[in-house]
């Protein structure tokens, strides 16, 4: 997919949309109930926006530097 964490953070929105909303549905237990899916979205979006905000303000090193 991408080579730096910074790019991955951008792609996380696309990843979550695909893993939780796409793919073939096979009869069986889905470990995540719908409410959990919403919660995951909220948690991950908070993570994405906090990373973006922190980078903007220069609070955190750029995510790519963490490598």
């Amino acid at each position: 997919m991408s080579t730096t964490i910074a790019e991955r953070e951008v792609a996380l929105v696309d990843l979550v949309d695909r893993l939780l909303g796409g793919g073939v549905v096979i009869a069986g237990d889905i470990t995540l109930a719908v409410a959990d899916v919403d919660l995951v979205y909220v948690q991950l979006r908070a993570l994405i926006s906090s990373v973006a905000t922190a980078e903007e303000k220069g609070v955190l090193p750029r995510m790519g530097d963490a490598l």
Partner: protein
Amino acid sequence: MIELYAITDNPGPPLPDVAPPLELVPIDGLAAVCTPAADAEVSAATLWRYEEVVEALMADRDLLPVRYGTRLDDERAVARAVNERRDELAAALDRVRGAVELSVRVAAAGTEQASPAAPHTSSGAEYLRLRSRAKASRDRAARALHEPLSALARASVEGRPRPPELFRATYLVERDAVESFAEEVAGLQEANAGLGILCTGPWPPYSFAEP
């Protein structure tokens, strides 16, 4: 419990070497790729780990990715569940054969730059009218992207944009056309300075897996 990653052709190339090791459950020309389910909280890291396994599989075979979090009791249950939809799944696998998924999301570059900056010089109604006209023109631009991009794709699905996005769509693209798709995106970005185009991928065909 075992967790499912993907449905593939069987036989296929050897499974990639990942931990925990992958298992193949054969079902009449197809196979389900599984692993013993681990108790893990869902986090960005667990989602990426899952994705990495599916991408390792995608590197040298066609596949239908399975909805994240699908777990069944044992291999017999997997075989039974897949067998129930065997023909549908085989047809879906044929539809994505040789192709990958690319995501395109579009937002206005510099959110409100197209809005009039001095509402005191005009009425509130005028301000709103100009604002909505600016928005409509950005929407038209986003539409203008879809036609050239879908011409390079085998199939496409438009999604509902989440604000501040103006447009989002997913394209099923031949593996060897990914580069020309990316070039087209770069060209469209250059021609539409007022839009920010974000293209990611190649992804496994999550958006085209369900028949």
